[in-house]
């Protein structure tokens, strides 16, 4: 089953959008997950709710909110345009939409890793002279690494299939913002497009399946590593 060049464009664009979205979201997700897992501060409940909001909002609402905020006339969008950064109707905007939609899943997995990591090892590091940041880098982060990786893969899988917020915010422009999901949506409406829609659906299935498989293998390896270290 050969893909047409237009279909290949949609596939590579989807992978690029998902990868860029997850790589950019990762540091923010780690910081937010750490705050939520380990710190108490005023407004914590608010931050918590805000982070998980895209999970429960209709995606079209999230996309619309992005359009209002990051559109060329939006509060943030107009400001960014001074620096020549335009997100609306660009692939970078698709990455932003995917990042926002995948963010809650990423934060949730990483937060769990931080919550289950034992503070007693951080205490030991502290008595050896390690300040808070060094402790985080050398103890907390490496021990949470499997959870961070799992969160990354889960978010990547989510970003691959993001539809509602993407099409609302950046539309469905072939070669610029048309991902696998929006391409399938278009093809279904075209007479005789079913075969191509099916091909893309198959590609989407394979990619998602591989991502899930990778996350399963990694979590298994982690589980056996834990068993070893508790012997």
């Amino acid at each position, binding site marked *: 089953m050969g893909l047409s060049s237009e279909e290949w464009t949609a596939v590579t664009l989807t992978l690029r959008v998902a990868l860029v979205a997850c790589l950019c979201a990762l540091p923010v997700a780690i910081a937010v997950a750490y705050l939520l897992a380990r710190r108490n501060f005023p407004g914590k409940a608010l931050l918590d709710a805000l982070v998980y909001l895209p999970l429960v909002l209709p995606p079209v609402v999230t996309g619309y909110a992005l359009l209002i905020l990051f559109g060329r006339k939006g509060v943030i969008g107009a400001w960014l345009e001074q620096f020549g950064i335009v997100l609306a109707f660009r692939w970078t905007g698709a990455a932003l939409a995917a990042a926002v939609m995948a963010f809650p899943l990423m934060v949730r997995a990483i937060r769990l890793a931080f919550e289950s990591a034992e503070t007693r*090892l951080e205490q030991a*590091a502290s*008595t*050896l*002279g*390690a300040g808070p940041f*060094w402790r985080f880098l050398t103890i907390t982060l*490496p*021990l949470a690494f499997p959870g961070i990786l799992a969160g990354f893969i889960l978010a990547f899988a989510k970003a691959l299939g993001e539809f509602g917020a993407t099409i609302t915010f950046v539309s469905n422009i072939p070669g610029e913002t048309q991902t696998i999901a929006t391409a399938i949506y278009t093809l279904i409406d075209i007479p005789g497009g079913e075969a191509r829609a099916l091909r893309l659906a198959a590609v989407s299935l394979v990619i998602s399946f591989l991502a899930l498989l990778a996350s399963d293998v990694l979590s298994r390896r982690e589980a056996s590593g834990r068993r070893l270290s508790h*012997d």
Partner: protein
Amino acid sequence: MIEIAVEKRLGSFNLDINLRLGERVTAIFGPSGAGKTTLLSLVAGLIRPERGRIVVEGRALFDSHAGINLPSHRRRIGYVFQDIRLFPHLNVAANLDYGRRALGLPRQATEMERVTALLDIGRLLKRRPSTLSGGEAARVAIGRALLGKPCLLLLDEPLASLDAARKHDILPYLRRLADEGGVPMLYVSHAEEEVRQLAQRIVRIDNGQVSGTD
């Protein structure tokens, strides 16, 4: 000279300790639940007393009147925990080297050799903590604390998790540590025999209070 005068309330438990210690090795001796580990945690800065003063070799670590409360990573207190707490993702060599790197000190091969020889852990350096026996792990934990260049070493029942035979294997190392380690030690235990072999002074603690010294 070590001066510890602290009050700490934990739920219905009240710790009120006043000690001045000049000996090389002081044993803190008492039944479980007496507050021995709490006392060490206060000295190490892992928990904060309500009131009091902790001074080690003329350096105030905590003083509620003067508003001094050094965070634990600035106290230079070595702590060998009862549950050992080696870092599972680092090998023995990296565990031993952790304190030096955290403090940003230059590498000192002679010091590393001295400590690994003292505790006989030189051949374990490449191993992961999960592959060590209980006695080996305890010795590595002691070495790690010692290499952090502490001005006081706290040992919280380092032998508690070992069977009788292993205890006898480790006691000589602890005696050497007391003689050659060059660091004053607070040694917590509820086993009288261990304490008698190691300490010049024994402080008995019961129910959060000093009940006697000898």
